[in-house]
C-alpha cells in the first residue's frame, strides 16, 4: 500500500516534471543546468585523487622499489609538467604509441617490476574497497598540464598512423545497433535526455571534450580517465569491450587528442 502511494506520488512528480521540462525546454532549462555545472566547479573532488596520485608518484613501488620519478612520460624521467598535453606520443623504448595510462602501466611493469596483471588490477576504481592507483596517478599527471596547450605530435609518423586509424574507427559502424562514435558525436545539437552530446567532428567540440578528461563523475563519485570514457562509449554502443591500453583505445585517443590540439588543457574537470 505504502509502496503504491509512493509510486503514485513519484509518477505524479515525474509527470509534472516532464511537463514542466517540456514547457520550459530551451533556454531556461539549459540556463539552470549551466548554473548547476557552474556551482560544482568550486571544490572538485578530483583534487582528492590528484593528491593521492602525487603521493604515489614519489614513493618507491613494486618489487624493484622504484618510484615514478624514473618514469619518462615523454619529457624526461619524472617530468610531469606539461606531459599530458603531448600524449599520446611514440615511445621508442616501448616501440609503441602510448597514452598516459598505458605508459604508466609500462613504467609499473618495466621499471617497478610489477606483473602486468598487478599493474592492470583495478583499472577503474569502485569506492574505497576497490581503489584505482591508475586513476589517481592519471589525475595527478593530467593536473600538471592545466593551462598548457594540447600539442600532440601528429607529424610524427607512428602517431600520424594511429590518428588515421582512430579517425577510421570513429566513423566505423558496427555492433548489434549498427552504431559508430559518429552516430552520437557527429552532429550538432544531439542529446541523450537532457545531456548535450559534443560534436567531436568539430574542432571546438573535440577540444572542449578532450581537455576536460580525466573528470570527477558526480554520478559515480569516481575520478574517470579517458580510457574509461572510451570503454563506456563502447559499452553504450554494444560493442565488444574495449581492452584497456589496446591499440584500438590508443588510436581513438590519438584521434581525439590530436583534434584538440591548440586548446589549453582544462582538467581534471567535474561532470554530472
Amino acid at each position, binding site marked *: 500500500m505504502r509502496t503504491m502511494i509512493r509510486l503514485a506520488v513519484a509518477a505524479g512528480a515525474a509527470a509534472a516534471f516532464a511537463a514542466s521540462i517540456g514547457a520550459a525546454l530551451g533556454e531556461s532549462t539549459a540556463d539552470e543546468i549551466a548554473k*548547476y555545472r557552474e556551482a560544482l566547479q568550486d571544490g572538485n573532488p578530483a583534487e582528492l585523487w590528484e593528491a593521492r596520485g602525487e603521493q604515489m608518484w614519489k614513493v618507491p613501488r613494486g618489487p624493484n622499489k622504484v618510484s615514478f620519478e624514473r618514469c619518462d612520460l615523454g619529457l624526461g624521467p619524472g617530468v610531469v609538467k606539461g606531459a599530458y598535453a603531448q600524449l599520446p606520443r611514440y615511445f621508442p623504448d616501448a616501440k609503441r604509441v602510448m597514452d598516459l595510462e598505458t605508459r604508466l602501466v609500462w613504467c609499473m611493469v618495466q621499471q617497478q617490476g610489477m606483473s602486468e596483471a598487478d599493474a592492470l588490477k583495478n583499472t577503474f576504481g569502485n569506492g574505497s574497497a576497490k581503489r584505482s592507483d591508475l586513476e589517481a596517478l592519471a589525475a595527478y599527471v593530467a593536473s600538471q598540464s592545466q593551462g598548457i596547450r594540447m600539442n600532440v605530435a601528429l607529424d610524427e609518423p607512428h602517431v600520424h598512423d594511429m590518428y588515421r586509424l582512430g579517425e577510421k574507427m570513429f566513423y566505423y559502424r558496427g555492433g548489434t545497433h549498427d552504431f559508430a562514435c559518429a552516430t552520437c558525436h557527429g552532429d550538432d545539437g544531439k542529446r541523450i535526455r*537532457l545531456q548535450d552530446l559534443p560534436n567531436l567532428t568539430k574542432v571546438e567540440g573535440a577540444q572542449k571534450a578532450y581537455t576536460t578528461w580525466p573528470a570527477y563523475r*558526480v554520478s559515480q563519485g569516481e575520478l574517470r580517465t579517458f580510457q574509461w570514457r572510451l570503454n563506456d562509449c563502447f559499452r553504450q554502443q554494444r560493442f565488444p569491450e574495449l581492452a584497456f591500453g589496446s591499440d584500438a583505445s590508443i588510436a581513438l585517443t590519438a584521434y581525439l587528442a590530436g583534434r584538440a590540439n591548440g586548446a589549453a588543457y582544462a582538467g581534471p574537470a567535474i561532470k554530472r
Partner: protein
Amino acid sequence: MNTNRRHALKTGGALSLLSLVAAAGWLKPGDAAAADAWNKSAFETHSLDETMKALGGTSPVPSNDIVFFSTPDIAENGAVVPVGITSKVPQTESIAILIEKNPNMLAAVFDIPPGTDPSLTTRIKMAQTSNVYALVKANGKYYATSKEIKVTLGGCGG
C-alpha cells in the same frame, strides 16, 4: 514511523533529553558542539514537524531573510546537488538543510558561532525532485525558507 517514535520514547530519560536539547549542537553556539552526541533521532525524521520536534524547536516562521545562493533550480544529478544558504536573521546560531522527499528529511546542521558568517555552501543528495528547506535558529527562534529543486537523470555525460 511508529517504530521510530517508540525508539525515541524508549531511549528517553536524562540522556535523550540532553541530546534533544543539545540537538545537533543547538545548545549554545560554538559550545563544543562536536563534543555532543550525534543527534540520531533528528536524522531519522520524515516531516518538518517531526524534525522540529527532534531538534527541540517549534514550527519555523517563514523568512525572507534566509536566501539560497549558488543553488540551481535543476540538478543534473541528484547525487550531488550544490546548496548555498545565507541567513540575514540577526543572531543566527545555526543553519540546517532539510529535504522534504528524501528517505530521512534532515541532511545537515551547521552551528554558526559568533564571528563566523551565517553563510555556507555544501552539497547534498536528493532522491527525487523536492522542496529543500533552509532552517535557521536565531536567538532561540526558528526561521525557514524553501526552494524546489528539480532532479533529472542525465545521459552518458561527456
